[in-house]
């Protein structure tokens, strides 16, 4: 009798092995990579695993869909890595619409020669983040590009969630008189990456704030506060996100510099490089714009959640046809807080 053959001759070498072109060619090697490296970690409990698409039960309410590509360098940084970042980032984009995130899809572009051990570490981290958030990765894709044509690994994730009818958070709903709240210290993700990338010793204890925000957002919803806008200030930082909202809502904003929470080590690293923490990326913070009468109630609900213990009321919305975001400075003067132009570049002098 012929014994039942194992699917693949030898298991993947997760110690010394590297991504090869054949891992993207659609043959047995690709199937093995998917089985042994991806499915074993991300799970295949959903009906339809092994098919070209996931088939999932439809949920009541309206669908919210968001997609985000992740190209971070370095891939591993204090407080996280590209894996958990790609899960949390997309969960947050869905959650800030007031939605409950349900499923994730993940696409990987792998560079030939990338160590399988690092890939396994990244997928482990994704699996952990997805499990912690309770949002499974239900379908995915991998492609391999030649050495030198990628940057190790790029991950694109798409998130699907549902939002109840009547829940209507949107960037165009900020109204004059509203209060602006930030959920915690700003600039931590961006400075953690930069400190690692540029080997800035004294900033080595800055840890990325990457975290899924849907739990916090659920608590905010439960507070009953009249929330108008929620957004996560990722690239371009708080300044750019507030400018986006101001433009969408055709309003102006006035921030109070003394109220904006910035960890001392983040402030120090920014001083050192001549950067402004208002423009540095966050991955686990949110901005909420809420009716002024409900601001204290919302703030209390947020501070009761572990991800927003340092939430702060940082400013207010007013009428302004020019849509300027301004700030009263610590010194007592006034300035514009403009859109980020280009990349933030360190100053010479």
């Amino acid at each position, binding site marked *: 009798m012929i014994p039942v053959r194992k699917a693949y001759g030898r298991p993947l070498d997760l110690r010394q092995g590297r991504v090869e072109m054949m891992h993207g060619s659609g043959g047995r090697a690709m199937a093995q990579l998917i089985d042994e490296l991806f499915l074993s970690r991300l799970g295949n409990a959903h009906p339809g695993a092994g098919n070209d698409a996931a088939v999932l039960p439809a949920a009541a309410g309206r669908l919210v869909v968001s997609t985000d590509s992740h190209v971070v360098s370095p891939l591993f940084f204090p407080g996280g890595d590209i894996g958990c970042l790609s899960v949390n980032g997309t969960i947050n984009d869905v959650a800030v619409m007031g939605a409950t995130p349900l499923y994730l899809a993940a696409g990987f572009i792998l560079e030939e020669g990338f160590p399988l051990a690092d890939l396994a570490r990244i997928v482990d981290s994704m699996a952990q983040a997805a499990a912690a958030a309770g949002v499974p990765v239900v379908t995915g894709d991998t492609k391999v590009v030649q050495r030198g044509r990628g940057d190790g690994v790029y991950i694109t994730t798409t998130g699907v969630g549902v939002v109840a009818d009547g829940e209507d958070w949107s960037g165009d709903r900020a109204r004059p008189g509203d209060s602006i709240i930030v959920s915690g210290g700003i600039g931590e993700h961006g400075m953690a990456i930069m400190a690692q990338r540029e080997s800035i010793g004294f900033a080595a204890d800055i840890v990325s704030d990457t975290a899924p925000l849907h739990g916090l957002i659920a608590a905010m919803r439960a507070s009953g506060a009249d929330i108008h806008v929620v957004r996560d200030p990722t690239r371009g930082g708080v300044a750019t996100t507030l400018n986006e909202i101001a433009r969408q809502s055709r309003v102006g904003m006035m921030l109070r510099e003394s109220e904006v929470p910035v960890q001392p080590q983040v402030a120090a690293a920014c001083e050192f490089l001549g950067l402004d923490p208002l423009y540095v990326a966050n991955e686990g913070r949110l901005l909420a714009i809420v009716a002024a009468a409900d601001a204290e109630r919302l703030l209390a609900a947020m501070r009761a959640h572990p991800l927003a213990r340092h939430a702060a009321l940082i400013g207010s919305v007013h009428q302004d046809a020019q849509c300027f975001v*301004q700030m009263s400075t610590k*010194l007592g003067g006034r300035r514009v807080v403009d859109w980020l132009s280009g990349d933030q570049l360190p100053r010479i002098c």
Partner: protein
Amino acid sequence: MKFIDEFRDRELAHGLAAAIGRAAQPQRDYQFMEFCGGHTHAIARYGVSDLLPANVRMIHGPGCPVCVLPIGRIDMAIRLAMDEGVILCSYGDPLRVPASGGLSLLRARAALAGGGEIRMVYCAADALRLAQENAQRQVVFFAIGFETTTPPTAVVIRQARALGLRNFSVLCCHVLTPAAIASILESPEVRQWGSVRLDGFIGPAHVSTIIGSRPYEFFAAEYRKPVVIAGFEPLDVMQAILMLIAQLNSGRAVVENEFARAVTREGNRKAQRMVAEVFELRRSFAWRGLGELPYSALRIRREFADYDAERRFPISYQAVPDHPACECGAVLRGARRPQDCRIFGSVCTPENPVGSCMVSSEGACAAHYSFGRFADAKVAP
């Protein structure tokens, strides 16, 4: 944050503002030039102007190293990467300065096809390290800046020689502060036409840690202009303004040092010696806005010729006229305010800078656009 927060304290600022208000005589006005981009940045970012009385006006000076770099110098750096295939290393903020042919170092990097590379470095030593790591490649450090950034460039040139590196050189564009101040004081707007009235200067902070306060004594004595050297924090600037007003009120014109925590009269002698060992004066150097100024910049001495990119590679400076509508030159001389330029904020923005003053956040136009333009729009929240 220690040693930072103390210099941004609201109470002290209001105390100083009140003192300035009392000292400024209502029957006259005061016009001071802050030489450095660092001061311009601090004034704009912290809203210092909002705390000053209406008869005290600050005029932005030319002390932004990126702003005074002429187009032709950026072109040389681009040619090194594009035509000579070198790894060109630059500080961050020159990367966006517009050059000829619609290029900038950033745009050139996106268009590079040959073997050349353009990389951002945080310090001169990073460029030297790149040369050590890439022995097969020519690495050129694009050295710009006033006296503050010159000593580190001198150090890497000396180190390159000590290490016997054959693949490292420097495109030297270092310029000198006193020459720029002299050129402003000699400009027709100040001397003949009187269209720019300068009552005194806030002297450089970081530059003065190197050169000391002595070089400014000539300006105080010869041109009867008070100079107060000040740090880059907003309270430093306000204290300096108060000291300038006091000098004017009492008819004095001397050099005073508000930044005594870092600046001495003699400066950093060791750094000065090192700079003198590696560099010598150029007979003339083209500045954006100020034109050709005699003995206003440095070049690498013959003894270190092996590390001079201008000698190693077939590149030479070609003057390129500025955009005809751009007023950067007049802005750098204090003859115009950024918002007086026809293309300010419309054609010329930080995303698409036409002139160099819109590039670095220390540039007068960028500082006003990014931090202060609400004042032009007359919006009251």
